[in-house]
């Protein structure tokens, strides 16, 4: 059934509507404040007619407004498409072209980038009806309608489409429903042992499916969720200082960076912590070493996928070695096991995603008979212990965000002087992995120009951290030899 997120959250027993459940740089919000906010957006949306089955894109960096809008759109049976406010012209336009939203809520400008202009340019280019709501503060919205024939509505029961950049330059949309969110909520509550008395600090973008599920789970459980809207460290540090938390969820690289900046004030930041949940990247020995002195707090690793939610978490503190436990209802298997005992991890849950938006072919490729082929290569030891050894797909995990090499390779080869480009991920102490590009060029061009070329087109974290010009790309058995390229990158780097 569509449109029931609101009921799921608010039809709880012992609902204390005055309890403060959300704090961000914007302010504090109780369940009552959220209910009122949702009502306002419902009446705003009703003014433009029925939105059932319509795709509603949200480029809304203010978390309370984002939450209110999300619940309002869902209540009216529209389909929510959260879009990261860290995207730039090229990657944003590609997502808009792919999703073709009927309605867009966008902040006008954010971090020096003009979102309104990019949204207008796209809406005018497709010459179909689009309703654009824009705002300076995510509170007061102006409406603008780009005229044209209406787009058809969705007939499938989709609640949310989470977007990621695809490997071929075409984005991927992960379609999920309320059952998926309920499953992830259960998994997060179990792994983080959430209760009403908790104050949970989140350094996770809520425009991603993981962050969005964490936000909804926290509100549903009436936890006090303190979540940063800004990813600038002084802002994060200030927020955590004002609202010291007993639980924290983020990626290993963001946690490490936070710790490097604040470790002289152990009492304020780390003493209150009982559980730190880390996800989005693997845990490196370097990470374990950095955080070894944090006492009396359990650090766990969470393993999940946009498509299936949170699947496993480490039972014990990761500093004593990782032993995985399955979240309630999840099943795993290892297939195509090699002689060395390494195979691909497959997972099954009672409520996985509904498929990739408009790509049944892609869905079929990785999701068969309820089993999802993760692309993660694992070794099974001592019966049930699982050790991650690599990835079949060569996705880069930088700071908890995913960077798809194919997207950046395509961007680089759009430059007139670039003949060939190959992008690899290389371990880095701050980023987790850094993005390294090798290019073969024709004519005269220096790397400085290539960096500038990428700068304004895609989200900053996707811009290569290093670009090397090479005479040719090494090939092994007819395929690009990424192993050699990673080796070159390590040799060429000073760290």
């Amino acid at each position, binding site marked *: 059934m569509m449109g029931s997120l609101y009921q799921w959250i608010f039809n709880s027993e012992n609902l204390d509507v005055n309890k403060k459940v959300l704090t961000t740089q914007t302010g504090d919000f109780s369940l009552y404040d959220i209910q009122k906010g949702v009502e306002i957006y419902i009446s705003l949306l009703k003014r433009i007619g029925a939105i059932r089955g319509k795709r509603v894109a949200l480029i809304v960096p203010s978390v309370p407004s984002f939450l209110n809008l999300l619940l309002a759109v869902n209540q009216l049976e529209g389909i929510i498409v959260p879009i990261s406010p860290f995207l730039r012209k090229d990657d944003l336009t590609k997502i808009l072209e792919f999703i073709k939203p009927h309605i867009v809520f966008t902040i006008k400008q954010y971090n*020096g980038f003009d979102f309104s202009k990019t949204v207008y340019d796209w809406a005018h280019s497709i010459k179909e009806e689009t309703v654009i709501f824009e705002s300076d503060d995510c509170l007061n919205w102006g409406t603008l309608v780009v005229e044209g024939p209406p787009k058809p509505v969705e007939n499938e029961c989709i609640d949310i489409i989470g977007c990621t950049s695809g490997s071929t330059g075409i984005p991927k949309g992960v379609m999920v429903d309320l059952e998926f969110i309920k499953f992830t909520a259960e998994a997060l509550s179990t792994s983080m042992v959430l209760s009403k008395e908790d104050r949970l600090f989140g350094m996770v973008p809520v425009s991603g499916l993981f962050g969005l599920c964490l936000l909804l789970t926290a509100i549903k459980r009436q936890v006090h969720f303190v979540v940063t809207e800004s990813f600038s460290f002084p802002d*994060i540090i200030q927020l955590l200082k004002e609202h010291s938390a007993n639980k924290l969820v983020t990626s290993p690289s963001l946690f490490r960076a936070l710790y490097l*900046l604040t470790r002289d004030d152990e009492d304020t930041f780390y003493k209150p912590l009982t559980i730190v949940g880390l996800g989005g990247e693997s845990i490196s020995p370097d990470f374990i070493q950095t955080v070894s002195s944090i006492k009396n707090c359990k650090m766990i690793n969470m393993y999940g996928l946009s498509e299936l939610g949170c699947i496993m978490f480490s039972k014990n503190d990761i500093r004593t070695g990782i032993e995985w436990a399955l979240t309630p209802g999840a099943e795993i298997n290892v297939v195509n096991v090699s002689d060395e005992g390494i195979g691909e991890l497959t997972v099954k849950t009672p409520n996985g995603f509904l498929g990739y938006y408009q790509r049944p072919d892609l869905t079929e490729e990785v999701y068969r008979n309820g089993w999802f082929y993760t692309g993660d290569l694992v070794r099974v030891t001592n019966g049930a212990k699982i050790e991650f050894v690599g990835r079949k797909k060569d996705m880069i995990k930088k*700071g908890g965000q995913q960077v798809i090499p194919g997207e950046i390779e395509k961007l680089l080869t759009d430059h007139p002087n670039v003949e060939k480009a190959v992008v690899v991920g290389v371990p880095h102490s701050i980023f987790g992995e850094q993005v390294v590009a090798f290019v073969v060029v024709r004519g005269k061009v220096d790397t400085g120009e290539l960096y500038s070329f990428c*700068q304004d087109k895609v989200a*900053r974290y996707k811009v290569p951290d290093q670009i090397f010009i090479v005479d040719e790309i090494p090939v092994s058995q007819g395929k690009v030899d990424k192993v050699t390229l990673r080796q070159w990158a390590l040799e060429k780097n000073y760290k």
Partner: protein
Amino acid sequence: MSFEEFRQLISEISKIPVEQINKNSSFRNDLGIDSLQMVNLLIEVAAKLKLELHMIQSRLDFQTVGGLYESFVKERE
């Protein structure tokens, strides 16, 4: 370290052309530097200046290039 040297260092680390980096450039809005890049940059600058980052973090101005330069120079004195 002179401002010119500081500017060069920022350019080297962030791969932003040195002529785009001025005293009043905002790291986030003008140079588009994101959070982890900023931490990476701070760590590198602190290492060059032989300062312990976590000791001085609360006194650093992260907003503009000139502001960060001034706050680092002050720490060194």
